[in-house]
């Protein structure tokens, strides 16, 4: 029953002493966590004094030869790489989580709190012209939908949030959105907000467009930049 952990589980060439074990473990961890290939010189420096680095690398390489992950030597040094025959599995990795740009966050907030709301009203509240792409993006994500039309000259389209929005934000209904006052009271937000954002506030100045837009651009996330530009 002298099953020496890795000696047993990870087969290797005959004649190797079990004393190599801790050094192999160390090597394994270092190579795994490093964000780029590690040179042999650096590995030697990080391993315990007296380790024979190239011998260890050879052993590790052999150990992982048939695995889903292989130890490979690349230009800059050594690195673990998934086995080439499994490359097809790598392509289907997780969807990337991306944050909304500030502009998109703001627009979503306005739509959520003021729905149904028209595009012109959104722009009035934001005080800047809205790039078409931002609204499109919110619709594409599936959080914003067209609600209907305002009974007003031009019968503009109104926007609101939908079920996917509620689900994403774990809300039962729109009225469950946290109130500004409440959040301000809990110290999460500054309390200088409320009055400007009432809908009857029709004369919100939409001038200074140019300047604010420029500011916006600075804060825009790159992805939205692309969206907005296109």
């Amino acid at each position, binding site marked *: 029953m002298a099953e020496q952990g890795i000696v047993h589980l990870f087969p290797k060439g005959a004649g190797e002493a079990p004393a190599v074990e801790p050094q192999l473990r160390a090597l394994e961890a270092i190579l795994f*966590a490093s964000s*780029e290939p590690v040179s042999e010189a650096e590995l030697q420096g990080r391993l315990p004094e007296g380790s024979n680095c190239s011998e260890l690398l050879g052993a590790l390489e052999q150990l992982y030869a048939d695995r889903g992950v292989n130890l490979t030597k690349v230009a800059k040094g050594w690195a673990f790489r998934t086995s080439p025959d499994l490359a097809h599995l790598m392509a289907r990795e997780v969807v990337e989580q991306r944050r909304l740009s*500030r502009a998109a*966050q*703001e627009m979503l907030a306005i739509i959520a709190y003021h729905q149904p709301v028209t595009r012109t009203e959104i722009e009035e509240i934001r*005080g800047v012209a809205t790039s078409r792409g931002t609204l499109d993006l919110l619709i594409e994500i599936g959080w914003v939908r067209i609600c209907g039309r305002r009974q007003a000259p031009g019968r503009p389209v109104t926007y609101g949030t939908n079920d996917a929005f509620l689900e994403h934000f774990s809300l039962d209904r729109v009225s469950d959105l946290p109130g500004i006052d409440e959040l301000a009271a809990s110290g999460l937000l*500054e309390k200088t907000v409320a009055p400007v954002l009432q809908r009857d506030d029709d004369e919100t100045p939409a001038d200074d467009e140019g300047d604010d837009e420029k500011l916006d651009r600075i804060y825009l996330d790159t992805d939205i930049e692309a969206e907005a530009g296109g």
Partner: protein
Amino acid sequence: MMESRNNKQQPDLWEEDVRQSPEMLVVDVDGFEGPLDLLLDLARAQKVDLAKISVLALAEQYLLFIERHRTLKLELAGDYLVMAAWLAYLKSRLLLPEPTEDDDTIGEELAAALAVRLQRLEAMRKASSLLMNRDRLGRDIFARGEPEIRIERKSAYQATLYDLLSAYARLGRRSAQSVVHVTKRAVWSLGEAREALLRMMGDVAEWTPMTVFLSPYLVTAQIRRTVMASGFGASLELAREGKLELRQSWTFGPLMIRTPASGHDRGATNG
């Protein structure tokens, strides 16, 4: 506590900055974080199980501590004084247990509740250190440093309620050209009174004289009026919201308050 924050990074959040915050300098009495923390420290000095501490001795030690700091003319935050007032009252109940017909407060019960609060805080302290001493990602254990994921440009957009609210607040700020108000602490605001009452009374089901909260511990010469006014105002407000019940048995008699309880007869809420 309504002064607006003009920088997002609060100075007292990170360990090394704690001492530099002026707000903390007031609150931080000899390094204690609030009255309950101070009490807990005193309780530990009794070197017995927290469930078996002498609350009476504890109250006395706390009051002594507060007295000492008052004579040193240190500015003590309201929280400490509210607790002092409360403990002074508790002490009187423990020493002279003679409940009137109107007042079913039992000193021992209040003392026991206090002991439980201390245990709870201590438990959270322990939990906090257990948590912080776990093997933490990026400190003790590490993830794959060079993930080999071929990311397909399929994005799941991610936003939180916090993002939404922040965005909304940002909008308001931009159009409101916010003005920075810096409030001085010379007044005990209605808000502060309210919070203090809620915090202290949160778990007290017994009719308790309102004056407990307006005792000499709270009222120094400079802020006597504001404490009386705000305390009274806040209690009315809380009563209106159903978070507190008020009772006064005769004109100019002591104003009694307690937390509403579903099982209790709803006390008259005339102030």
